[in-house]
Each structure stands twice: as structure tokens, then as C-alpha cells.
């Protein structure tokens, strides 16, 4: 469904000389030009590129599409994305395709994301899923700094193993850290850490029960907590308001291939999704975006 396998992807991993490893770095800013948001400074290095298709045509927002001209990420590759949404801008960032991380010879693939959202600005960080091939070794760090009245929406989907071809994530490693600061104060921190024995760990009942796909949605915005009940309803969960009338409302789960939970506190809305496959998670993400009006679904997602 996502990854078209190249013959080379199944080759035994060989040590890639340090000099051939890709170190990609992308930096860009979104600036205000009148009421529209337009690209400001852009700097690209390695395999990282950004394109701005049809910029500013929808609701004054700028859509940025990230590309990896290397086609995927190998062990030892590094990618750093640094994105600034300047005062008053509206920026949506997505990626051209699912990001594939190949099996590693032991070297770590380091993915760094740093987001800045200035006063009154709005940044939607909506990359397509990250797919980790078995034996991939990923360390990802996501940091965001947002102004007190800014708005940040982040959705990160992860699929462990090329599930469409029956691959299980047996020996890979994933370490994922999120640090979100608002007005300089750390308000949200999260860490996912899957070390040795990935498949056995995933299969555990309190982990994912063996399901390979998951996502976290985080909205930091004034009024984010007002979306708690609508988000629960969208996911088919009891909304907590009608308890007295519907004591059995805990039952209806969507389809049996998705598990979901929603919470809200301190100006944040947080959603966790686990799927039997990536499609179940992606469908839930689209429902949330659409029904809650969280963002305009990036055009490139439709293709």
C-alpha cells in the first residue's frame, strides 16, 4: 500500500561508509505578506527539499511539502527539519510520501524536527506516516516552541514493518521524544522507546497487543479542551457528557481494527490511536481532521 519495494531494499545490509551516508538539513520560514503567508528564507542541504505548491490559495495558509530526494532513510543517515512560522502566519507542513526508514547495519537513523510558532501564528505539522522496515534503528526528536496565543497541531503516524507485504518488526529499534514548550514552559513531553525484542514487546497486552500502527495527535491551542467531547464522538467513544442516559455507551468501538483514547488538559488535546494496520489509523486521522475542522487535509494526501 505504501512502499513499493525495490530489489535493493531486501539486500543484506552492508556497512555504508560514513562519507556515503546522507546528512540532510532543511530550514525554512513562513512570513506574512499582507494577509497571506508566503515562504521566507529557505535553506536545503543533502536530500531534503521543500516545495510550496499553490501557495496561499487556500484560506491564506501556506502549504509546504517536504521531499526526500534520497527516496528513504538508511542507517546512519540524519535528517534535520527546522521550521519557523513567523508572527501571524498560517502554515501547513506535510510530506510528499510516507517516509521509509530502511533496515540498518547497526547505525542509527537520526530524525530531528524543530518547530517554532510565533505570536498568533498557526502551524499544522501533518507528515505522512513514517514506515520503519524491520531492523530499522531510528532515533527521532521532536521539539516545538510556541507562543502563548499560537496554535500547533501535530499528527505523527508510525507503522512498524512493511505490513502490506507481511513484514513484522522483529529486531528494529525506535526511540521517539517529544518536547513541547509554550511561552517557554515545558507543557508536554512524551517518549516512545522500543528497544531489543521489538516484536515480543509489541505483542504485550499493555503495549499494542501486536498491532503495528500507531499515531499521536496533539493540538496546543487556546480552547483546545473544547474539542474533547467532539473528538471522542468522532472516534465512536463515549463523550462523558451523556453518561446518565447511556450507561452502556462504553461498547461501540470502531470496527475492531482501531483502539483510541482522547484526553485534554492545560490548553491541549491529545489523541492516541493504535491500528491493526496503517489504514485504520490513517482513516481515523482523516475523520478527526475533517469533522473537528482541525486543518485542511493536505492536498497531497488525496493522491
Amino acid at each position, binding site marked *: 500500500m505504501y512502499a513499493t519495494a525495490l530489489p535493493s531494499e531486501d539486500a543484506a545490509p552492508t556497512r555504508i561508509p560514513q562519507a556515503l551516508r546522507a546528512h540532510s538539513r532543511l530550514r525554512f520560514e513562513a512570513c506574512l505578506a499582507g494577509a497571506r503567508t508566503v515562504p521566507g528564507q529557505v535553506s536545503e542541504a543533502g536530500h531534503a527539499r521543500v516545495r510550496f505548491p499553490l501557495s496561499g490559495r487556500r484560506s491564506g495558509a501556506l502549504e509546504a511539502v517536504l521531499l526526500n530526494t534520497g527516496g528513504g532513510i538508511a542507517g546512519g543517515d540524519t535528517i534535520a527539519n527546522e521550521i519557523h512560522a513567523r508572527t501571524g502566519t498560517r502554515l501547513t507542513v506535510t510530506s510528499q510520501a510516507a517516509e521509509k526508514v530502511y533496515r540498518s547495519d547497526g547505525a542509527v537513523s537520526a530524525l530531528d524536527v524543530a518547530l517554532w510558532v510565533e505570536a498568533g501564528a498557526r502551524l499544522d505539522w501533518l507528515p505522512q506516516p513514517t514506515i520503519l522496515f524491520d531492523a530499522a534503528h531510528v532515533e527521532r526528536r521532536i521539539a516545538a516552541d510556541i507562543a502563548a496565543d499560537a496554535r500547533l497541531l501535530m499528527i505523527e503516524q508510525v507503522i512498524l514493518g512493511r505490513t502490506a507485504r507481511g513484514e513484522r518488526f522483529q529486531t528494529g529499534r525506535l526511540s521517539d521524544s517529544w518536547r513541547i514548550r509554550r511561552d517557554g514552559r515545558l507543557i*508536554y513531553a512524551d517518549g516512545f522507546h522500543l528497544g531489543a525484542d521489538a516484536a515480543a514487546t509489541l505483542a504485550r497486552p499493555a503495549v499494542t497487543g501486536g498491532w503495528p500502527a500507531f499515531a499521536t495527535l496533539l493540538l496546543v491551542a487556546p480552547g483546545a479542551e473544547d474539542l474533547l467531547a467532539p473528538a471522542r464522538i468522532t472516534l465512536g467513544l463515549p463523550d462523558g457528557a451523556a453518561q446518565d442516559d447511556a450507561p452502556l455507551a462504553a461498547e461501540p468501538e470502531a470496527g475492531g481494527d482501531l483502539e483510541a483514547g482522547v484526553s485534554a488538559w492545560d490548553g491541549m488535546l491529545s489523541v492516541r490511536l493504535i491500528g491493526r494496520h496503517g489504514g485504520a489509523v490513517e482513516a481515523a486521522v482523516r475523520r478527526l481532521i475533517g469533522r473537528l475542522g482541525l486543518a485542511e487535509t493536505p492536498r497531497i494526501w488525496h493522491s
Partner: protein
Amino acid sequence: MATITATPTSMAESVPAEAWGAPIPDLIPLFVWLSPAYPVGAFAYSHGLEWAVEAGDIRNATSLRDWVNDLLRHGGPFTDAVFFAHAHRALIADDHVALREVAELASAFAPSRERQMETLNQGDAFMTATRIAWPSKRLERLVEVWDGRTAYPVAVGAAAAAHDLPLEAALGAFLTAVAANLISAAVRLVPLGQTDGNRVLAALAPIVREAAAAAIRHPLERVGGAALRSDIAAMRHETQYTRLFRS
């Protein structure tokens, strides 16, 4: 714990005095702080376990052992153990920057509203009780470097260091108390017999030791777990129809 049989007379002459007194640290503060009677209200929180019982994930002693095993190795108790270890070391080293960093990170490290409330309410209550009943200049360092609310493992880890309790023993005791609290919740909710609960706790002792050892080695910047279904259970607990617990 080791039993010491005193053999005075001839040997005592050739052995330095501190070798007799030093090997057994005074663990009494730990027994007090981690007793259910200490006023942190641990019994009021289930860490989402109440929903896991409701949903059928925990229905007997075996599934209870599996769930708590996962939490100790990959869930909130594991990340709490990492925070405990870093807070303990930072206070021993008198490293204000490291102490502030772990206090800040632990206070924000929560996947849901009730999970954050669980750790901050217990942490603040622990600090209040301990500063009054077990005053220590060194524990005041934590209050000086961090003016926000205090996560429970940071509070206990720092207090243990302030009273010179060794990290391994203190962290093992902390994780045992956390596991015992979860099992006690399950005994009431499933329900299970007290004997079953005790068997589960005994069976988890090796996991507690393993988790404590792993947490002590774990770098702070990579702190994390994988217990996503436990996170979802904590979120679903917020709308659970009948609730005995606050999380």
C-alpha cells in the same frame, strides 16, 4: 534483607569500625514514605487499570501479572523509575541544572489529564508531608531549583537521596510500592482474593529488580515506554461510568 550475626572479640580488632556500621543503610524512612499510611493518597489512583479491568484486559491473576509486568518494563512505572534515578543522582551530586531538568521533564511527561494529576498530586502531597516530618536541607534544594509542581518519582527520589538512602534499594522499594498499589486496586476491582494478589506481587519481584536496573542505566533524554494500550486505558478511564479510582 541480610541477617547479621555479630561475632565480636578477636575479629573486631582487625576490622575497621566503619565496616561494621556502614554496610547496612538505615532504610526506615523508605518504609514510612512508601507505606499506604503515608499521606500521598496512592490508594486513590489506578493508573488506568480500572479501565483495563472494565474492558476485560485484566480478569484474573495471570492477566493482572501480565499487565503490571508491562507497566514495570514499558509503562508509566518504568519512566517514573528513570525520573527517580535521575532525581536521586542529581541531588547526590548537588547538580542544580540536572535536578531542575528532571523535575521539569517529569512534571510534563504525561499522556493524559488523569495521569498527570496522579503524579503531581502525589508528588506535591509527598513533598508537603516530608518537608514537615522529615526535614532536610538537601531536600530543600529541589524546592529552590524548581518552583513548579513536583512529579511523585522526583519527590521520592530526591528525598531518598537527601536522606542518603542508596539508589538501588530505594528505587526497588519505590517500584515495589507502585506495583503493590496497582495490585491492591485490581484485587478490589476484578475482584481477586488477597492470596492471589500476594502471589502476583511475589511473582513480579524479579521484574521489579530488572526494571530498576534498566531504569538506572537509562539516559534521561531517551526516557520513554511503549505501553500505548495503558495510555489509552488511562484516557478511557476519564469517561468510565462507574469509578472507584481517580485515575
